[in-house]
Every structure is written in C-alpha cells, then in structure tokens.
C-alpha cells in the first residue's frame, strides 16, 4: 500500500557556529551564524524515504519561516529525495502551539498516512510539536522512534525502514527509546512519529539530487491562508549562557580533600 508521509525540515543554527546571547538577553545573535536543517528532521526524512522506497507513495516536506527556509527545503530535504515541499511563509516569533497548528491544518488538507518529525529541534530543544500535533489531529503517536539494530548493522546498511508497516497497511510498528531500554508499540494509522538519533543514518544530498530538487514543486502558504494565528503563547523572558566553569584549586592534603568533598561538594 503506497504511503503518503509528511515530514518537517526546521532551519536551525549550525552546531559548529559559536552561539552568543544578545546583550538584551532576549535571544541569540544571528549575524554571522550558519544554518542547517535540524538533524532530527533529517532522520525523519530518511525514514520517510525508506518507507516510500519499500511501499511506494509520496514524501511531502514542510518548513515554517522566512524565505531563507527554502534553502533547507531544497537541500537537503528535496535533494535527498522528498517529492515536494510546502513552505509556510512566516516572519516573526512563533511557538510550538502555532507550529503544531500550521502542521495540523496542512495534515487536514494533505491527509498523510503518517507524519514523521524530529523528536525535537536542536535550537530550542522544546520537543513538543510532535505530541501537540497528534493531539490536535486526534491521531496515535509514536514518539522517540528508534530501532533494535545498531547504526552499523546490516539492516541499516540495506536502508530498510525501521518503522514497519503492517500487512494490512492499517498500522505501523515502532520501536521506541525509553529509559533503560526499548519499547515496541503498534500505532494505528494515521499517526505521528518522532525520531531519535539512533533510528537511521540519513543519506547525504547528492549533486544529481540537488539538480533535481530545483524543479520539484514547492508550494507557498501563510499561517493566515491556513487560518492559524501565530501569536505566541510563550514569551522568552531571559536567555543566558551557562555559568563559566571556575578554575580548580589545590588542596593541602587528603584530609582537606575529604573535607571539601564532604562539606562543600557534598559528593560523599
């Protein structure tokens, strides 16, 4: 049974960039930063491509933001092999509720069998959109999708999808990463899944893929056209760097060390 899968591609700061908090403490300095696709989303796209390679179907990738997010939609998302893209053109603040609402409206129109999202974005680490989206749609959710095999395994090398479609095409089996182990669940379709780092090793965009991506359909919509109010419900009050590590000291002898461990660090 062919699958229609909706995936996300959030534009985030490149983790190689040096992140600085702005002087007002309201956000980070964007000048001079490099951007890339959220790595968790890249894993979501890879999983979707593996599923459609096996079962047939279509992968639609969505991003929300100003015109710069088209970069990530074209490459790597479409260049990796996604079939088409939807760009929600929105400049200005947004929070997880607004994002989930946009995705909900798109899902209601596109009617995918499965949404695969990164479990979180590496910029603000909220990790909420997947669950909000499933709730808003009333769909089953399978968060933290992972797999039993390692990233060095033959299953991974063969690019087999880790999310398994049932024989009747009505549900998927997902191995979830939970504290201390793995949990296998079956989720009725349509469903929302979110990806862990150990789900797969995403492919790289290739030059032929990049060339093909240029002519793949990219539809522009706006929150207004979707009927979504993006006014955030959450305000960032303050942003700070983690406290700098203080220099160590030398202690005179073992009793002094023991004393500090016991009374200052309270480690023993």
């Amino acid at each position, binding site marked *: 049974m062919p699958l229609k899968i909706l995936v996300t591609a959030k534009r985030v700061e490149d983790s190689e960039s040096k992140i600085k908090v702005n002087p007002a403490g309201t956000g980070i300095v964007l000048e001079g930063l490099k951007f890339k696709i959220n790595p968790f989303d890249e894993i979501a796209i890879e999983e979707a491509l593996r599923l459609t390679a096996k079962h047939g179907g279509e992968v639609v990738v969505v991003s929300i933001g100003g015109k710069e997010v088209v*970069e990530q939609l074209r490459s790597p998302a479409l260049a990796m092999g996604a079939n088409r893209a939807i760009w929600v053109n929105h400049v200005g603040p947004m929070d997880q509720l607004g994002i989930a609402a946009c995705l909900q409206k798109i899902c209601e129109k596109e009617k995918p069998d499965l949404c695969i999202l990164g479990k979180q974005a590496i910029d603000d680490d909220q990790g909420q959109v997947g669950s909000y989206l499933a709730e808003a749609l009333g769909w089953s959710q399978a968060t933290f999708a992972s797999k039993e095999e390692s990233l060095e395994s033959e299953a991974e090398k063969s690019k087999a999808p880790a999310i398994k479609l049932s024989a009747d095409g009505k549900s998927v089996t997902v191995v979830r990463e939970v504290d201390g182990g793995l949990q296998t669940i079956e989720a009725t379709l349509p469903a929302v899944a979110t990806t862990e780092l150990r789900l797969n090793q995403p492919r*790289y965009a290739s*030059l032929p893929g*990049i060339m093909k991506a*240029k002519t793949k359909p990219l539809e522009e919509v706006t929150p207004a056209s979707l009927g979504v109010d993006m006014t955030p419900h959450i305000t960032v009050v303050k942003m700070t760097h983690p406290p700098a590590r203080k220099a160590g000291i030398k202690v005179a002898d073992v009793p002094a060390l023991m004393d500090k461990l016991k009374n200052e660090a309270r480690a023993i």
Partner: protein
Amino acid sequence: MNPLVSDAFVDFLVTDVLELDALLALPAFEGHSRAETIAPWLAACRRVAREVLFPDYRTMDAEPPRFENGRVSVHPRMKHAWKELCELGVIAAGRPVEVGGQQLPLTVATVSHAYLMAGNLAAYAFAGLTTGAAHLIEAFGTDALKARFLAKLYSGEWTGTMALTEPQAGSSLADVTSRAKPTKDGHYLISGAKIFISGGDQDLTDNIVHLVLARIDGAPPGTKGISLFAVPKKREQGSTLVPNDVHVSGVIHKIGWKGLPSLALSFGDEGDCHGWLVGPEHQGLKCMFQMMNEARIMVGVNATATASVAFHESLAYARERKQGRAHGASPASAPVPLVAHADVRRMLVRQKAIVEGSLALLGVTARFADLSEHATGDDERARARLLLDLLTPIAKTFPAEKGFEANALALQLHGGYGYSSEYLPEAWLRDQKLNTIHEGTTTIQGLDLLGRKVVAGAGAALQALGEEIEQDCARATFDVSALRAVLPSVSELVATLGMRGASGDVEGMLVHSADFMDLMSTTVVAWVWVKVTAALGARTDDFAKGLHATREYWFATELPRVPELVRRCQSGERSFRDFQDGWF
C-alpha cells in the same frame, strides 16, 4: 574539529573574487545558480569530507592495501567511502548532462573537491582517476567504446586508471615500449609493463579500465608513435566478465597516499590482453595532453588541500596549547597559548599565505579553463586559453612545492609531538611530497613554463597576464607598487631568455628554469593576493584584516626575492651548470 578548508574563505573566493554569478550567466552553466545548486553542493561536499572521509583518514594511512594471491585488497573502510563518493555524484560532476554529469564549472569543482581531498586524499583519488579515464574515452573514444565503458565509469560501478609510466622510461614518455598488435576483430593485443599505476587493482568494484599508452606495431619512434588504449581488467564475453590478461606484478611501498594502492602492472603475459584504441593511431600523447591542464590543476588542488588540512590542524593547536610567556612576564604568571608568540604567528601567516594563495590561484586558473571552453566570444575563449596554458604549470607547482613547506611548518608548530606519528601533520607531509612528482615533476613544469608557455605566441600569453595584473592593481585601494615594479624586469628577462634560446643556446635559456618557476610563481601569487584583497572592497572586519595582512606579508617577504632570481636567470649563473659529475 578540523574544518579541512576555510568555509569563509571559500565562500568569499567563489562569490566575490571569482565572480561566480558572472560565470554562471554563461549558457553552458544555465542549469546552475549560486543559491540553488552551488551552495548546496558545497555544503554536501563539506559534510561528506568531514563526516565520512576525514574520520577514516588515519586508519587508511596506518593500514595500506594488501597484496595477496595476485589481488589487491584496499582498506575495508574504503568501501564505505567509495559508496558515499559515488552517491555524492563527484565522478561525473563536471561532465555534461548527456553523459550523466551535471556540468559543474571547474571553478566550483576546484574548491569543492578541495574539501574531499583534504579529508582523505587517497580516497578521493579513486574518484579523480576514474573521472580522468572516463573523460579521455568521452573525448576521443568511438561510440561503441563509450557505450561499453562510459556509464559504468561515471557512475562508479567501475574505476579507471592512467597507465602511462614504464619502469625504464619514467618521465620520458618518448621511451614507452608497450606494444599493441592489431587484430582482425577490431581490438588490439596489448603487451608490456607499467609502473606506479595508482588504483591499478582494488576490490571495490567488479572491473577497472586502464588507459594505456602503447606503440602499435610499426609505429614511428619517439612521442609521435604512441597510441592510447582502453584496457579493462576484465572484458565482457557475452554477459559475463572474463579476465583480460592484466596482472599485478608488484605493489609499491610508499610514504604517502597510503589508502591508494600504487602498482606495477603487466599486460598480456599470456598474449590475451585486449585493448581498444582511443583516438587516432599515434595520437595518444596528443589526446593525453588535451586533458593535461585539468589534470595538473587537480594536482595543484591535491597539494593545496593537503597543506590546508595541516594548516587548520596547527592553527587549532596553536590556539589551544599553552606554552611560555610574553617577554618580561613574571614566571609565576599563567602560560600563554602558542599563538601569542610572534614566531608562531609567522609560521601560521606563512601557511595561510601559501594555502589561501594557492586556492585562489587554482580558482583563477580554473575559471580561465571554464572560459576557454564556454565563453561565448571566440576572442574571449582564445585569450582564456592562453592564460590557462600559461598559469597551469604554476598552479600545479607552486601549491606542491610551497605546500610541502607549509606542511613542514604545520609539523614544526606541533614541536616534538609533530615529529611523532601520534599526530597527523607528519602523515600530511608524507602525502604532500607526491605532488611535486606526479603529473609532471617540478623539473618538467619548469621546462614547460619557460621553454613553451611564456614564449608561446610571441609572448602573447605573458602580455595577457600583464593586462590581468594591471586590471587588478588598478582597482586596488592599497599600495601595489612593489608588484608593478617587478613586472618590467620579468618581461625583459623572458625576452632575453627567448633570444638566447633562439640563438641556439637552449641549455643557457633553460638552465635556471627552476628559478624562473620560482620567480613567476612568487609574482603570480602576489597578483592573486592583490586580486583577493581588492575584492574585499571597504570591508574592515577581522576576516578582511587577515587577508590584507597576509597580502602585506607576501609583498614584504616574498616579492623582494624576485629581482635576485631575475638576475640569476638573466646572467645564466653557471655554478651547477659547469659542475662535473666526477666532482661529487
């Protein structure tokens, strides 16, 4: 993490110095745009270089390919690297769409491939060699030959090699003795021995296509009797591949590029080695030479990449490693990072000048290569061709010779650790040495530059270069008088040496070809630094300050050597020319 090559410099070089948008406006590159294809392509190369190739560099250097039972096995990790390189589309990137390529400008390939080479030179080399072999078949092969080999090579299903050198001939291709005997069936029977064949055998792919230079029976002696053949390791018989009487006769134990097997091969030991003629009979060298500029530019990039990765390694080390204090500082004060010492900064600035100067020189040269093929006006193509031919030996030699010096500085900067194989700079130093040797040694390049290129077309190339230099000097907002000052003496020197050669004293003309290469390289790189920094415009950020200061370094420390080198060439200084063999 080592960036391998500076992203900021590459982005600036491509966009502002090499004016990519103007190049992409040519009809040949209509499929490309900076935002939609070039930027994502650079991003893809950077990732594959950093995430796939570089992590396996050390293990591939430590464990070279094995030769057992007549077969060569490459490092197991090479299979992973090969798969990623093929999927990336690097082999056919620069070739036209009709043959499965993407018509990427050489200007872009030059900088994008630098990342892959810097990540793992030997791994990239399998792809580079395959492109080279396939390109020869594409340019000169019959349709039948193309149908047989091209798609398999450009997709990476098979690999390719260049089998030119023979044990007794070395650089002297006129002495090639491999033979080709015509048969009624259209193919030739090849026999002979070749040496230093990189990638000559491997267990990555089912087949390998060797591009072999050999003499057809009855061919004239010397370079005019050499033909080019495609000789697969296995040939098709029906739907299967059968051995084609190509054998590995030995492996070369070498000091660098250890991931890439370099072999002695023998063809036709059993009289059953089939080869197919590529291009016209006796025109093999001519065919090879048409690919030479591109191949030599790529060796220049090999060298630049190898110096670049070591530069960035030593820069990170100098910033992190704390040693010593400022003059007069209290011994009780905390030690400072190495980079706080002036002489350490000298070693870093020198590396920066060589690495980024080389990359810019290669970018400029590659741009002339693109224009020589794809510019719309005949005159523009012809002028670009002149400049390409003139700059190519410099763009090959300067990065290789000065890159070795840069690699030595990177090692030096690591102190005793640099001399240990626990650290990577010694490996890159070993890799770098090959670049002054293969694809025409520095001696060959010097002779090519002085004996052919600068005197060709009655000095038209040199004149075009002068115009290019003046154009960039004219838009510079800084002092370029030191560069302008050396130019007339270089022109005079070329005239003097040209006349010396024309009068019959060819040895007198060429005896200082190495010095001539040195002075031309130094001058051309000074021009390249003018070109780079002129493109900064009014920028005054740290990036711009660093480039201006590097240009000033080159002007202050390197350009002053040029007049002395000019004097030496002009006078025909005789110390080593007259030195007798018995005196050693």
